[in-house]
């Protein structure tokens, strides 16, 4: 059913994204030898998946609720801190695997509850005032970051140890790659496919897709849209918190991680076309690959990764010049 929906526009968007990916690949093979290419690609995928985990919720929430949730990065960071707290609070003698899984599950549950609470208590009174919602989520982000800084200190926590199998390296082509990054890629892939199936194949999904286009209409058809809003916001927050806890054993948990990932996530959803889920997923991977490639180039020739963060901004500008609504975005 959905394939019939994909018009020329969709094919054209895919083509642009595909050409860009091929160009990146070609660039990689031109500059680096194959061992490094493999590492760059895997690194791009792992970064892309983390961006995806933050941006996915933002994009769906923006589409359905018309709220640009600037607190999403802070939810990501909170997921890491909550996960670490659970990990460390379990009694001595608990196997590492159990701690690790408990931390992941705990982050998801915490994220879901927090998201539902924020939507019901803070966002709901403000649907008539969209600008206030942006200010509110920005304030929430600042408050959460400062709170964490106050409680845990500004420098961050020592990364917790993941299970042994995820705490080693494997040889990829002629390069070495941490298995934990593969785990991050796997988590991202599972969620990408899962959310996509949810949106395309289930009745909740079709209500969300319809609501993204016209939530008032969905309400007129007899759906309690407010309840769907709460559910979707909670899901988005849960995914972000899971992302934070997934990233943290590798990146560590520190107060500023929220802001860093928020900025990249905004770039990702702008490139993807704001409320398009597919666009967000593809854009996240492209941004990850761009970042990893430019990072490697920058390290190799300038001895500093400085160009990496600039490159994704340039990428965004170029995409917006070619297509002002983003890769997969349509004008309203």
């Amino acid at each position: 059913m959905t394939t019939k929906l994909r018009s020329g526009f969709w094919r054209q968007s895919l083509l642009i994204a595909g050409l860009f990916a091929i160009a990146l690949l070609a660039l990689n093979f031109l500059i680096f030898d194959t061992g490094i290419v493999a590492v760059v690609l895997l690194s791009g995928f792992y970064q892309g998946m983390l961006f995806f985990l933050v941006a996915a919720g933002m994009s769906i929430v923006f589409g359905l609720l018309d709220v640009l949730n600037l607190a999403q990065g802070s939810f990501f960071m909170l997921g890491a801190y909550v996960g670490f707290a659970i990990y460390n609070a379990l009694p001595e003698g608990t196997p590492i695997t159990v701690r690790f899984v408990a931390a992941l599950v705990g982050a998801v549950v915490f994220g879901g509850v927090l998201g539902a609470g924020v939507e019901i208590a803070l966002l709901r009174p403000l649907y008539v005032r969209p600008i206030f919602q942006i200010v509110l989520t920005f304030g929430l982000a600042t408050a959460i970051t400062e709170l964490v800084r106050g409680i845990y200190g500004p420098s961050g926590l020592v990364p917790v140890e993941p299970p042994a199998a995820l705490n080693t390296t494997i040889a990829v082509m002629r390069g070495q790659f941490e298995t934990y990054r593969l785990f991050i890629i796997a988590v991202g892939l599972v969620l990408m496919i899962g959310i996509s199936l949810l949106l395309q194949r289930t009745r909740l999904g079709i209500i969300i897709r319809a609501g993204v286009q016209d939530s008032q209409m969905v309400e007129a058809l007899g759906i309690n849209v407010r309840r769907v809003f709460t559910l979707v916001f909670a899901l988005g927050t849960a995914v972000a918190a899971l992302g934070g806890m997934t990233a943290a054993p590798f990146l560590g948990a520190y107060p500023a991680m929220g802001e860093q990932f928020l900025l990249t996530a905004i770039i990702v959803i702008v490139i993807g076309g704001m409320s398009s889920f597919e666009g967000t997923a593809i854009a996240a991977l492209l941004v990850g690959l761009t970042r990893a490639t430019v990072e490697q180039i920058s390290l190799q020739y300038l001895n500093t990764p400085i160009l990496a963060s600039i490159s994704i901004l340039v990428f965004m500008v170029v995409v917006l010049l070619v297509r002002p609504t983003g890769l997969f975005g349509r004008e309203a």
Partner: protein
Amino acid sequence: MTEAQVILETRDLSRHFGGLKAVDGVNLQIYQGELHSIIGPNGAGKTTLFNLLSSTLKPTRGRVFFKGRDITHLPPYRMAHLGIGRSYQITNIFPSLTVFENVRVAVQALGKHNFNPLTPIEQFQEYREQALEALELTGLTHVAAVPALALSHGDKRKLELAILLAQNPELLLLDEPTSGLAGEDVPEFMQLIERIHRQGQKTTVLVEHNMNVVMSLSDRITVMHQGQILAVGTPQEISQNPEVQKAYLGEMYAGIEQAGPGGEMA
């Protein structure tokens, strides 16, 4: 007709926007099974009244009753569950869903298991059948798999009707269903509405700016003027009502004559 049961009733219904009395003290009775049109010039309060009837707006004062039940303060999404379907003045469809999916959302919205997210849509055969039936009625079967945004404007308005019909409402509230339609498509579209109304034994309330459109098919007409009811009656009574004529009908006649083909004006 006068013996008929009242299905929708307003008592002293008023909505003020600051000093503007958009709807002021309206007492309206809609009988079961009738096709009732609400007409009036721009600014008469038709759309505000319509939004009050469909619970999209809350009144400043007064109440709305559906089959004797006070529905004034029910949330908008409850309306569909009671058997009240509404359309909008602006075309409201889901552009990037297919025509079929558009209608199926409507059927599904009244189903019971919306929040079991793991149930695949395809399992629900009855949704499918109901949706196909609504497409059949509106003559859209051949474009079922097309994305709604690819439809012509006329077909989009038909799709809106199909979305409504899929829910099989008892009471249809239609806000200027012919707005934006090309002049030559209007009669056909109104015939479709009339057929749906008669065959489905529905009660239909039609808000219309172009009075030409409603004269031939309405059972009764309510004329709004400056937020209040100016007159209620059969099309013939309305067209002969001196007060209606004096107040503003002349102005509307002029507009109709400019608009093109004449209807069956008495």
